[in-house]
């Protein structure tokens, strides 16, 4: 498969009045054409920040990419002109946002919001052709086309997220970033949305970055997984590599242990001890060492490199015997 997106050694920080928040700290990520990559981690791990970085839409004056490159289809996003960026956003890389309640403009009809994508990126289409495409995409996401003249507040949460998906897909992008697309929805709607995304991935061959904290969603939808903690990818591999649960980063193991098991008779969940590290004051060495059950002296001094075994890479000294691999 051809390489589509290559993030190299990305550092992002948010400069607030009180402190500097180190949101992303040296992320390497490669996504190939047609590949579905799951980006997993708890809240505040830097998943969304990484995604916003890909589109170069970090909050102005606050978000800052201090180091690294984001190469999309051979071109560095960080060096693109405004025109090039605008042409890329939506057309080649599009994004589904986390909260469907707030990510649609409340006073523009949903039809016009979908149509805007075509207006921006397919200027050669006539009004009728665009209207036809809007109808088609609405049908694809399961919303009757005649409702395109309605406003977002007239739709339910699940339907709004479908509209968000329709907006993201109407230009048939090569890469779709889905930022926790089901978090704000209830479970029955979640299943529908996932089903829909699976179908779309199959039919349109779009590469996908699925941002989530739900390991179940990843297993269902993705080819590869990267686990993020405190702005770093601590483990990456194929779904098989990681879900076999034989060799995992201690953090990933912790995430798996958090999933309640229906077949065993446990009374309590097994959470990961301690709290997420403070991104304004990151610890030295491995960021996870405070919470890690396998911690050694070395973990507090030195940040482990990525050790590689085939497609599976883990940033933990326990796997040093695998030998050093490419950075993650």
């Amino acid at each position: 498969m051809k390489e589509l997106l290559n993030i190299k050694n990305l550092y992002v920080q948010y400069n607030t009045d009180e402190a500097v928040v180190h949101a992303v700290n040296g992320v390497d990520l490669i996504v190939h054409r047609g590949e579905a990559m799951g980006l997993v981690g708890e809240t505040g791990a830097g998943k969304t920040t990484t995604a916003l970085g890909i589109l170069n839409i970090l909050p102005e004056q606050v978000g800052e990419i201090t180091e690294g490159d984001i190469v999309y289809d051979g071109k560095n996003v960080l060096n693109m002109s405004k025109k090039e960026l605008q042409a890329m956003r939506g057309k080649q890389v599009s994004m589904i946002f986390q909260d469907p309640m707030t990510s649609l403009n409340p006073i523009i009809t949903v039809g016009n919001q979908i149509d805007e994508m075509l207006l921006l990126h397919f200027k050669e289409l006539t009004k009728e052709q665009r209207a036809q495409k809007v109808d088609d995409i609405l049908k694809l996401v399961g919303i009757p086309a005649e409702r395109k003249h309605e406003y977002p507040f007239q739709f339910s949460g699940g339907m709004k997220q479908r509209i968000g998906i329709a907006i993201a897909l109407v230009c048939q992008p090569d890469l779709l970033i889905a930022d926790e697309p089901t978090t704000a929805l209830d479970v029955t709607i979640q299943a529908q949305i996932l089903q829909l995304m699976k179908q779309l991935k199959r039919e349109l061959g779009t590469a996908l970055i699925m941002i989530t904290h739900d390991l179940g969603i990843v297993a269902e939808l993705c080819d590869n997984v990267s686990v993020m903690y405190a702005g770093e990818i601590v483990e990456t591999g194929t779904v098989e590599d990681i879900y076999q649960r034989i060799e995992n980063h201690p953090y990933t193991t912790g995430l798996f242990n958090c999933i309640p098991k229906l077949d065993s008779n446990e009374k309590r969940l097994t959470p990961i001890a301690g709290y997420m590290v403070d991104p304004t004051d990151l610890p030295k060495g491995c960021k996870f060492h405070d919470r890690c059950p396998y911690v050694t002296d070395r973990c507090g001094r030195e940040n482990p490199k990525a050790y590689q075994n085939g497609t599976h890479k883990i940033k933990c000294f326990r796997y040093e015997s695998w030998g050093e691999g490419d950075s993650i």
Partner: protein
Amino acid sequence: MVKYILKRLLLLIPTFFLLTLMVYTILSLSPANPAFMRLGTTATQEQIDEINHELGLDRPLLVRYGTYMWNLITKGDMGVSWVMQTSVYKEFMERLPNTLLLTALALLLTTVVGIVAGVFAAVNQNSIGDRTTMILAMLLISLPNFFLSLICQIVFCLQLRWLPVTGAGSLKHFILPSIMLAASRIAGQVRLTRSSMLDVIGQDYVRTAYAKGCSKRRVVFYHALRNGLMPVITNIGNNVGNIVAGAVTVETIFAIPGVGSMLVNAVRSNDIPQVMSPIIFISLLVCVVNLVVDLLYAVIDPRVKLQYR
């Protein structure tokens, strides 16, 4: 929508009557006595009673109010000035154009300058332009209207001789007064527009617009502006009331023969019929403007429009 407009228009009628009744009642509680004004303090009780009877002041309050409103609505008659014995209606109509021109100019200035500067400041948040705008707005809000007016009269009229000092002879006479009347209102409008736009610019759907590939200009004018203007439009309604009230001061300072200065003079001389008509005009204007604002709201926001079906 049409039904809603009709409903609102109908509601104006009781509002208007209640309002005028309150004003009328309050004014009739004042110790002003027209008989004393005409005859002096040496008048006998018979003379006083005679004049009171002639003016209908010996009748009950509600009857007087009813007569006043009946005459006002059917004949446009606003009574006779106690002091000058002239028709209030005639004087009111002579002065009305000046006030309308002054307030209209001030409102236009407030709205246009306020919104343009507010949007500019918000879009260029924390830039030098933004900071300058905010400091200027702060200054304008802090300076009392009359003080600023006097300073400007000295500088622009007496020193530089660009504009006439007082009077209402030509459009040129209205330039400085309308700017002075608008000044502090502009400042408020700028600050409100800026904060409202900043709020909208931080919304998720603005980020969505950027992610779609919109240019900054398209994001600001197509996605953010209409959302950001909603609280601003409400403020325009409030501004109208404020500006008309402010016209009272400005008309006095610049010696413009308008409804505002008529009100001040009438209050000073306890001339109740002369006081009534400007108050009725101002309150009616505020009622109508607020109705227009509410309707504008529905035009801009589809959520409001659907409620009004």
